[in-house]
């Protein structure tokens, strides 16, 4: 009997401990967000969002890095999205599991594990120096695209796998060729899932600093990048700059917390949209 009591006590204790762990991690997340919001909210104003940085980062706003981040997202997705979806189509529709497919899978897996700073080195050596794109929106965007590619492939593949077999069978039964089936039936039905994966990728890309440090993000740019060969300011790099390169820290500090808050709102906002969309998709399945 006492052993039974002991076991029950252990059970209760472990349950309590598990609740405690969850509460602790929720508290850490909450604390971080609350602290940043508390320190940053004072800096947020329309001017802050819509003005260019001025006077050595001590005045003005952060519209240049916001726009730069958006442009980086667009360039990276313009590269990663088509390539990612096509690769997923290959995996799911064309591949017969041969050596080529295995090699490709291994490559994609390895790509996913390349540390972001190593991707930055690669971007510097390949896009900036070898292809002569220089430190530009294009180089940085493509480097970020490489970062997003494996995630996009996995997400698109899952979406394609979730298309019911009957859809394909129906199309073949009506005499559709494989490509017609893919293009007119499979892709449209998988589309919401693919987009959701894309949105989550955008959330990841928007917050990355290390890959763009050497490939295209600059300390200060005069207004928006007007071509893909211009260098850009980007929000995450701007935070790093404000934290480490200001001459008057007392003046840049409020701007800094404001910038962090904007980046968090952007990244977490985008990923929330992705997460909610994914949850709704799953319910529908």
């Amino acid at each position, binding site marked *: 009997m006492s052993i039974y009591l002991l076991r029950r006590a252990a059970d209760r204790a472990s349950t309590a401990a598990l609740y405690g762990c969850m509460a602790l991690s929720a508290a850490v*997340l909450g604390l971080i967000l609350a602290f940043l919001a508390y320190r940053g909210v004072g800096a947020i104003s329309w001017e802050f969002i819509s003005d260019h940085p001025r006077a050595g980062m001590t005045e003005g706003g952060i519209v240049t890095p916001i726009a730069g981040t958006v442009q980086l997202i667009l360039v990276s997705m313009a590269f990663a999205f088509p390539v990612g979806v096509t690769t997923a189509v290959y995996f799911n529709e*064309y591949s017969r599991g041969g050596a080529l497919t295995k090699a*490709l899978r291994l490559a994609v897996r390895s790509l996913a594990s390349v540390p972001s700073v190593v991707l930055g080195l690669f971007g510097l050596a390949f896009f900036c120096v070898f292809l002569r794109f220089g430190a530009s929106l294009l180089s940085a965007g493509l480097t970020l695209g490489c970062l997003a590619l494996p995630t996009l492939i996995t997400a698109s593949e899952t979406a394609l796998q979730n298309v019911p077999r009957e859809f394909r069978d129906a199309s073949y039964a009506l005499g559709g060729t494989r490509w017609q089936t893919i293009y007119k039936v499979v892709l449209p039905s998988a589309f919401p899932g693919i987009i959701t994966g894309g949105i989550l990728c955008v959330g990841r890309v928007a917050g990355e600093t290390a890959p763009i440090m050497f490939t295209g993000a600059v300390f200060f740019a005069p207004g928006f990048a007007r071509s893909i060969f211009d260098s850009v300011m980007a929000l995450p790099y701007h935070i790093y700059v404000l934290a480490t390169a200001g001459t008057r820290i007392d003046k840049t500090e409020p701007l800094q917390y404001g910038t962090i808050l904007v980046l968090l709102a952007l990244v977490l906002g985008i990923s929330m949209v992705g997460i909610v969309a994914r949850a709704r998709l799953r319910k529908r399945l």
Partner: protein
Amino acid sequence: MERAGEIVITTGGPRGARRGARKWGEIVPKGVVTSVALSGIWLMAFIIFFLIKEGAPILKETSLTEIALGQLWYPVSNPPSYGMLPLIAGSAAVTLLSSIMAIPFGVVLALFISDVCPERAREFCKVSLEILGFLPSVVLGFIGMAVIAPHMQMKLELLSGLNMLNASFLLGILILPTIATLSEDSLYAVPQAMRDASYALGGTRCETMFKVVLKCASRGIAQAAILGVMRSVGETMVVLMAAGGAAIIPLAMSDPVRPLTSTIAAEMGETPVGSPHYHALFFMGCLLLFITIALNILVLRIESGGGEK
């Protein structure tokens, strides 16, 4: 890449000819899809090629033993010394400490979500974990540098708050979601029958979780842990901003460290292209790349081992 497309077209030829008019409508998309998909292989090959190409020349300046065992990292002194041991030790130390903090905690969180958490709160817990995973590392690095470091220095009366403990703690936060989410997936996939069997034998929930469910999911958890370690090895901004940057072999948790990633990020900008220092930094990139690829192969091994069962 175009050549790859051509090859596919020729191999598809005879079959296409039978189908007559539809031939091109079928073969062209297939060729295009295949060749675009191959860009993944190209990309990975390029990454490896360019890193080795830029990293290998350092071996002309110094020997491999000197790099691996040298204790002094003075890349621009005269004469320079390229000992990377302190940097490798720094990477290893923060990775180890952050894994020790994050892996057990992550697994416990995963257990909570998969087995204890009330159904209604499950989604909420999973979503908040996922959001934690989206926190940009530069933000955590900033917190470490501007908030934690001064406090840690004053409270614990350390020499500096920018140290291994600070950076590892933040790294732990960063890799926690990876570990917890992936572990949870494999815990949740353990068949209900396993749990039922344990309960039927009179096991409590605690015993079921730790003795049955955890064991069944051990492969998945091992994979999750390795993926977490992988992320920790490669993380840059947190260690750049919060680890202190002293190129020494750390002996205490309060020692500042200089992991490989932060060395690359801090010094790449200052070094002339083509100098031995530049090649040395790319060599570090190679090291990091090979470490992560090796870990990746380990994950694949575990995965395929699971398939045999």
